[in-house]
């Protein structure tokens, strides 16, 4: 045997680069190759330039006291949070009588804790329904007054955060049963019912919310018998409810379609009729499957409620314009006011979207097979 045919092992390959630990993470996420490293350095430079400027504007040079002179002296080099300190009562509660503003505060806290309670899966049972009815009644009673020695406050003075919460929660509550009926109607075997429901959904989804609100505020009074007057708040609430119902109906329909056919057939074999099949077998499964989408739809409604400003209801966005629009002294600091209101919206919407994601994971747990 010659040397050439002798077996020579090739040298072992070096161990792979560390991908664990801080160094490994940095290499994988920031410096994996040349383009990546260049992007990292460019972005770091960008951050180094803008972040200190923003922090300086928002915190270091900012004026937090409600002091116009100090705010003017800062000359937009620093944020004037004083405008929030000065106006937060109007922004949060609109034109509600100043001395009575503890009432909307309590009402909002009550409704929010009710929402918080409803997010817990262990609370998902029928007791929630009377609890909500009670909560809404107390909310309206607190806001409107006229009982238990509370001074009556007309709905035209309601505003700010309570109005936003009322419109979105109330609109959703109105929309929910209608959405279920319309979703069932779109899957109905009866052509007339199916056509009507399809028409409703496609018509509403084709038009902007503003036109529905215009209809609620200008046309609804014409539709009612003479002498009957509906409060503008209720009209707008109906408008939002009808609008949201069309979108929710599509979500519910998606859920119903996802329920396996065998479920409906089994229910019929057990002798259940149409309504009982839906109420006891199909809807519980369908609604649970689309719960995350329903939460997302609620986020949309919550944001859309800002549109009622255009028909002169002063919810959060409108209340801000109410507070600053006519005020010559504070008007230059409108931007800080916008940031404040945007922050409130953001907290609510971001919180709900996180909740929706968690819900999705939780529901997926049941479907996972190990």
């Amino acid at each position: 045997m010659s040397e050439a045919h002798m077996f020579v092992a090739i040298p072992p390959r070096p161990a792979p680069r560390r991908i664990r630990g801080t160094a490994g993470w940095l290499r994988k996420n920031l410096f994996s190759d040349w383009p990546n490293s260049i992007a990292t350095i460019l972005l770091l430079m960008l951050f180094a330039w803008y972040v200190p400027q923003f922090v300086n504007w928002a915190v270091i040079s900012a004026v937090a006291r409600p002091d116009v002179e100090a705010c003017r002296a800062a000359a937009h080099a620093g944020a004037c949070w004083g405008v929030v300190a000065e106006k937060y009562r109007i922004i949060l509660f609109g034109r509600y009588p100043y001395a009575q503003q503890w009432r909307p505060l309590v009402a909002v806290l009550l409704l929010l804790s009710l929402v918080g309670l409803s997010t817990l899966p262990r609370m998902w049972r029928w007791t929630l329904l009377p609890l909500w009815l009670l909560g809404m009644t107390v909310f309206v009673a607190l806001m409107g007054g006229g009982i238990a020695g509370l001074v009556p406050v007309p709905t035209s003075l309601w505003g700010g955060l309570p109005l936003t919460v009322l419109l979105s929660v109330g609109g959703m509550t109105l929309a929910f049963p209608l959405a279920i009926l319309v979703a069932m109607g779109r899957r109905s075997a009866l052509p007339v019912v199916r056509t009507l429901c399809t028409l409703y959904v496609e018509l509403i989804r084709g038009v902007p919310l503003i036109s529905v609100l215009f209809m609620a505020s200008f046309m609804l009074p014409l539709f009612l018998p003479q002498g009957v007057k509906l409060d503008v708040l209720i009209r707008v609430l109906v408008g939002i409810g009808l609008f949201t119902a069309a979108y929710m109906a599509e979500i519910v329909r998606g859920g119903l379609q996802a329920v396996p056919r065998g479920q409906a057939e089994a229910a019929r074999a057990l002798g259940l009729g149409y309504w009982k099949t839906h109420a006891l077998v199909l809807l519980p499964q369908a609604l649970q499957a689309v719960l995350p989408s329903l939460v997302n739809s609620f986020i949309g409604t919550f944001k859309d409620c800002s549109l009622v400003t255009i028909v002169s209801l002063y919810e959060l966005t409108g209340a801000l314009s109410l507070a600053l629009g006519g005020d010559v002294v504070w008007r230059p600091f409108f931007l800080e006011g916008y940031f404040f209101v945007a922050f409130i919206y953001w907290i609510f919407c971001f919180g709900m979207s996180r909740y929706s994601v968690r819900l999705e994971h939780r529901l997926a747990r049941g479907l996972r097979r190990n």
Partner: protein
Amino acid sequence: MSGTQTPLPISPRPPPDLRADARRWRERLIQLIVLAIIAVVLWWLMHNTLANMRARGAHAGFDFLFDPAGFDISEGLFGYESGQPFWRAFLVGLGNTLRVALVSIVACTVLGTLLGIGRLSRNFLLRSLCTGYIELVRNVPVLLQLLMWYFILTDMLPASDEALAPLPGIFLSKSGLAFPVPVLSVAWLYAGVGFVFGINMSVLYLRRVRRVLYDSGRQLPRVWPVFLLLAGATLLGCLIGAVIHGAPWAFDVPEKSAINISGGAAVTPEFLAVCIALSTYTAAFVAEVVRAGILSVQHGQLEAARALGLNRVQQLQRVILPQALRVIVPSLTNQYLNLTKNSSLAVAVGYPDLVSIANTSLNQTGRAFECVAIIMTVYVTLSLITAWLMNRYNRRVALRGLQG
């Protein structure tokens, strides 16, 4: 047991299915009742409306469209004067709606695609930046963002005599954005003819490429020759035009004087605010659509494409994009429709879009029903046209295998 076989009993004819009959009649009855209820409700609403209108002495009907409107419109594609009839005002409004929607759609698609790809980047910082933007923007109502942009554009920018000039020839101030536009010239017509000629040449060339591919399996280059053909033919047309009619590259550049900015083209701060707000807001949603579309292509597809020896462009063009687009395009269309519907918020900053014009007309004439009906009809028509185009597209890109 081989004796006489007892004949099989002839099964009696089944009795008529009375239950199915009954069900059919019941279904008919239910539908009749539903129709009757709808008819009664509609009649009741009509009756109330007519009674109310009679009590108020109001008129109904669309005849007001031919009366002079009597209000001015601050901007529009075609000129408008206050003496002209309402229907023209509505037309100007519709033009403004489409104009702002089209510009925003282009902007939000570009920005959204970049953000969506950025969210999938390997780079942690870029990924976080894009995620941060999306989470920040889509959790704040678009109306609030619109009002904020409008405030920034009208209250925080300098007046036109101290306008900002981010680039030479472009001025940004309280009175809007002024930018240069090329002066119309006959030579452009020649360039256009040249471009069309280039398209014809490209089509011929691509046919040849395909024939060579089918005959010999050789893939000729396609991208750069087509580009060259198009650019060359256009340029040639332009040059011929320039020789005959003089140079076409004159630009109308805005100039700043002590009082104002003149020349060039300009857009109002209202238009700008609506555009910026709609496109930055919708971009966050487009980004999510794009991301979901790219993630929907299974990893095995990319690996298979690599195993077949496709290069990066081919991987993207032949394997990833066709599958991703099937997911992306329907949702993207939905976002475009949402954007168009959201453009109705322009009424809040006084941009004269369709809703704003309808609102003004409504306040002036009191014809609430007619004005709202016009808004709704226009938007529903836009949705239906889009849905129709979408269905055609879907039929084209649908999985062939599933069609059978």
